[in-house]
């Protein structure tokens, strides 16, 4: 038995003895879970265990809320959303839209960032895993809402117009950092977490908002 297992066993044994009458407290269990995770996961490929297990405040608080089975209280949720909103990087040149055809390819691809990928893998957006987007694609997930007719439903006929600005910015923001608008969203923070770069996100915004995109036909 290696050192890590012995240490965790000792911690577990101590917990059991201490909590014999009433069982370990919530915070003791949280600590134990952290120790178990640290002892169980190892670095592999391009993934560093430390980085993943020491999640940021957003993930930590949302995970705790899920374990407790209660949603985050409003004030905390708002604070998380504000923090994430402030962290959004808007396009430096003010160009929000790219090429919807490349956007479709990015939405279809789920590659990158796993422990069997390399640093050279071009990351995909994973979008179809959770969303319906182009109606032609029948292999879509339902973890997120359908995005078919995304621009059409929102009345965006000219993404460059002043009227469309709020929707265009929201779309960029949501893809860059979904938690800016919903603290415990299931959706990844593509830009914030370095999954996709600004160019790729431009293509995705076009996929959703370009009137010529099949999404809006």
């Amino acid at each position, binding site marked *: 038995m*290696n050192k890590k*297992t012995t240490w*965790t*066993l000792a911690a*577990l*044994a101590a*917990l*059991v003895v201490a*909590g*014999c009458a009433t*069982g*370990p407290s919530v915070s003791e*269990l*949280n600590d*134990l*879970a952290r120790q*178990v*995770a640290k*002892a*169980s*996961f*190892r*670095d*592999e490929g391009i*993934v*560093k*265990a430390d980085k*993943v*297990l020491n*999640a940021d405040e*957003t*993930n*930590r608080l*949302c*995970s705790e809320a*899920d*374990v407790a089975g209660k949603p985050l209280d409003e004030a905390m949720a708002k604070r998380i959303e504000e923090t994430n909103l402030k962290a959004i990087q808007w396009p430096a040149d003010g160009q929000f839209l790219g090429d919807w055809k490349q956007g479709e390819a990015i939405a279809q691809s789920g590659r990158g*960032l*796993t*422990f*069997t990928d390399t640093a050279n893998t071009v990351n995909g957006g*994973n979008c*179809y*895993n*959770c969303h319906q987007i182009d109606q032609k694609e*029948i*292999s*879509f*997930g*339902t*973890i997120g809402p359908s995005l078919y007719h995304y621009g059409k439903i929102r009345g965006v006929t000219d993404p460059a117009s002043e009227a469309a600005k709020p929707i265009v910015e929201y779309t960029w923001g949501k893809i860059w950092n979904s*938690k800016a608008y919903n603290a415990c969203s*299931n959706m*990844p*923070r593509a830009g914030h*977490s*370095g*999954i996709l770069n600004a160019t790729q996100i431009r293509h995705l915004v076009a996929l959703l908002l370009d009137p010529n995109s099949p999404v809006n036909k």
Partner: protein
Amino acid sequence: MLVWRVKSKGLTLLLFEQNKEVTMQRSRLLFWMAAAALSCASALAQKTASQGIDEYRAMLQDGNPAELFEAKGEGLWTQKRGPKNATLEKCDLGKGPGVVKGVFVELPRFFADTGRVQDLESRLLTCMETLQGFNAAEIAKTGFGKGEQNNVTALATWIASESKDMRFNLSQSHPQEKTFYEVGKRLFFQRGGPHDFACASCHGEDGKRIRLQDLPNLTKNPGDGVGFAAWPAYRVSNGQMWGMQQRLNDCYRQQRFPYPGFGSDATIALGVYLGVNSKGSASIAPAIKR
């Protein structure tokens, strides 16, 4: 006599029109009725993508290649192997030395001799080491599909088959079993990695799917033969036999998490959480998957 033939999805309706003048209106009415009937019929005849996949999977059930691994595992149980040249017939999987029937649906559980909660695959490592003299740590470090790992998989497949159709009934009487349930629950909801994924991101709600793959809600009992009750399973898409350890490993890989050690406490704790949640559901392991 004019004949209208309306055809759709293998159904053909022939409408006969006798006198062109008088029956013009009637033929139009008939046409629309036919069109309506055909679209209803075709809607009934048309399968959802999910149904089509279910039919394909049902067809695969016959001659599940998992049986090949079952046969291999059964042979390994009574074969003298390892530095100690011994069989596994004295291995205690939770219901006494050598008892295999019914153990799968009670794992993971606490074992007094090792002082820890163990799942099937980590318990097999314990037995392979203590009875046969193999190095458990070495086997744990060996990648899936290589060396002794193949034997662990075959053994796990056979042992699971000896509980086929029995209902999950994990013990929560030992304090460590209760603690591991809570640890497993926390791991299940732990968000992390660049995608902020937790197990719950995919398996935390009813009626969701990823692409076209239905996702069971694993925060509660997902029903007979689903989730925890369906592994080990033979995966047709890559022709591989996967135990629960490999299933969890690949889930974590797709979550962009680091590598969970084979038989590590994190994987065992998750097994406790999933297994206890499945209480009462029937195991169909070893199953067959796409």
